[in-house]
């Protein structure tokens, strides 16, 4: 088990910077998920930690030892690949044993480790099979088994669930969570799926265009996104964004006027840039409360999606910006009806024109509102 520290890590391919000044502390036993859209550098970052790519500059430490120059086995990492990359010509047993044999473990140790690993992953009955005779989920488990057989200090996962169907994905997700609990190993997991990130992570690292956008627990990211990018990436359906005018209100907070939703006072500090100018209001679909409208006020419902446990209303602002609203199912509204929307001020987020979240007026107040929700 080990801690991982990245200090100003950079990676370039030719002249393109793929990773820019990433600093990160991952403590022993932590489950950290790198998440971001494709091309954000999350896989490259994982491969830098694995030792499959070279760090252009910056330091990578594992347990306070600089490992930039070490091979993957010297670093003590195990890795689960997206395509599993099982050795097609080797049995499950040999796949798991390959690394152990190369580490020059004696026969008996190899055998014990393989059987122990197989037991943990419920592969006992499959040891003589070839990968092609396994189901997707079983292959996935063999890949994990191969990665953990050498008892690495750190386990790396590169989008390991993307080749599984939806049902199996949920099941395997649970198994990985369980495995983390059981092994207590440091795990770093890459995914583009924010649901996977939310459900698995102790801590999520959101990456965008090669830099760390925000780091925090799933709840922190959901409730206090540091930027419009994070706010939009975490949560499904996506947070609604509306351009609004804001001005300072007394000593604390600001007053915004939202087209079609009236005026609201939010306890957010405007900075000099956004004073009197346009800011972005962010409200999650689940925080918008629709109320039947009378007359011509409010928003037109373009579509209603019924999902069984919930329903989504698709609306449009007078400016033509799309809005999504999440309600209980079945919805009390139908297509073509008009609704007015309301939201609780503490559940609203404000972003300046560069996409940075505007801070709460008072930090303690913000924390109170966070625990209330």
């Amino acid at each position, binding site marked *: 088990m080990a801690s991982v520290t990245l200090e100003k890590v950079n990676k370039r*391919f*030719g002249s393109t910077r793929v990773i820019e000044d990433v600093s990160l502390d991952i403590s022993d036993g932590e489950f950290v998920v790198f998440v971001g859209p494709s091309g954000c550098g999350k896989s490259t970052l994982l491969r830098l930690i694995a*030792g*499959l790519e*070279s760090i*252009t*500059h*910056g*330091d990578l430490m594992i347990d306070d030892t600089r490992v930039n120059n070490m*091979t993957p086995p010297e670093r003590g990492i195990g890795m689960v690949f997206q395509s599993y990359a099982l050795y097609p010509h080797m049995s499950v047993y040999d796949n798991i044993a390959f690394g152990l044999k190369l580490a020059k473990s004696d026969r008996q140790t190899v055998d014990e480790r393989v059987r122990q690993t197989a037991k943990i992953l419920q592969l006992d009955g499959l040891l003589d099979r070839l990968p092609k005779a396994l189901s997707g989920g079983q292959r996935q488990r063999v890949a994990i088994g191969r990665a953990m057989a050498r008892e690495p200090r750190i386990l790396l996962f590169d989008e390991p669930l993307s080749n599984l169907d939806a049902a199996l994905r949920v099941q395997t997700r649970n198994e990985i969570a369980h495995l983390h609990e059981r092994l207590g190993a440091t795990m770093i997991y890459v995914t583009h799926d924010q649901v996977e990130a939310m459900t698995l992570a102790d801590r999520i690292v959101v990456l965008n265009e090669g830099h760390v956008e925000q780091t925090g627990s799933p709840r922190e990211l959901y409730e206090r996104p540091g930027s419009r990018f994070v706010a939009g990436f975490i949560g499904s359906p996506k947070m609604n964004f509306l351009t609004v005018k804001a001005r300072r209100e007394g000593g604390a907070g600001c007053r915004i006027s939202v087209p079609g939703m009236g005026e609201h006072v939010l306890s957010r500090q405007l900075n000099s840039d956004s004073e009197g100018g346009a800011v972005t209001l962010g409200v999650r679909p689940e925080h918008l409360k629709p109320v039947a409208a009378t007359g011509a006020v409010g928003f037109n419902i373009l579509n209603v999606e019924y999902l069984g446990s919930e329903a989504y209303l698709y609306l449009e602002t007078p400016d033509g910006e799309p809005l999504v609203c999440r309600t209980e199912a079945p919805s009390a509204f139908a297509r073509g009806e008009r609704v007015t929307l309301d939201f609780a001020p503490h559940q609203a987020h404000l972003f300046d024109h560069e996409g940075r979240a505007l801070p709460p007026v008072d930090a303690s107040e913000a924390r109170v509102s966070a625990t209330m929700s």
Partner: protein
Amino acid sequence: MAAQESNDAPSENARYPGGNGSSRPSAEGPHRERGTRVRRQRVRAAWLFLTPMLIGLAVVAGWPLMRTFWFSLTDASLSSLGGAQFIGFENYLVFDNGWYGILADPLWWQSVWNTLYFTLISVSLEAVLGVIVAMVLNARFRGRTLVRAAMLIPWAIPTVVSAKIWAWMLNDQFGIINHMLLGVGLIDTPLSWTADASLSMWAVIMVDVWKATPFVALLVLAALQMLPSDCYEAARVDGISPVKVFFRVTLPLITPALLVAVIFRALDALRVFDVIYVLTSNAASTMTMSIYARQQLVEFQDVGYGSAASTLLFMIIALVTVVYLYLGRHRLGGGK
């Protein structure tokens, strides 16, 4: 081919471990590095793994080629390779009461002409026949696998054997070809295919076409099988005649593959040796550059003179190759 090689390099770059193949040091940073340990280990291993092959190629190709170049400037003979004296370009051309040397030898020029003639005719026939065979093999019919295997037989038969078989079939007195032609009344006296100077080149071409067409057909067939079927369906829906479809759709699409096959065949044809040696030996009417060079080298034991002929042949083939590579790169570069 080589052009593709260098074209695809940057894109695959990113996926290789330590992919940034550059040893260009990055400008800043206290911990500037050239790649992971894994990567440096791999580059070292790559050179190590290449060494046996490179040594092999140096011993059988690089060094002998240099020696051939050198011999061409000497009076070396087969019995005294070591005692060769440098004589400059005398093997190529020298004035000594009249012009001497290869470039003044009518037989050399005839062999150059024969080689080009042979190459042009046989490769053209192979291209046309190859496309026809490929089209037939591409059709769906019962027994296609068997027919394809049958088509491969001429390619698999050793050249010497096919030359012997054809020599027998073309035999002037007892050959089956003359027998057939007499039988249907196309000729009234047996032709001496391999001995008659006006016929022997055609005999050689016949054998080469028979033997090499399968190769062309296979490459074209591979291209045919990669063609999208929807544009054919579209053509059929539009009611375009099959002949038009062939010239407007199929032929342009298989042209790249056909060109590759043609260049491979042309390079083979320019250095043709065995089929001619076996069929017509050293006869002047079918003498090619390879035959000429070998005759000088081995039979006349004149290594200097023969090496000069070999060198000229090498230059001609190198020229064709370079032109082809240049055109290939040009075409690829324009397409991107």
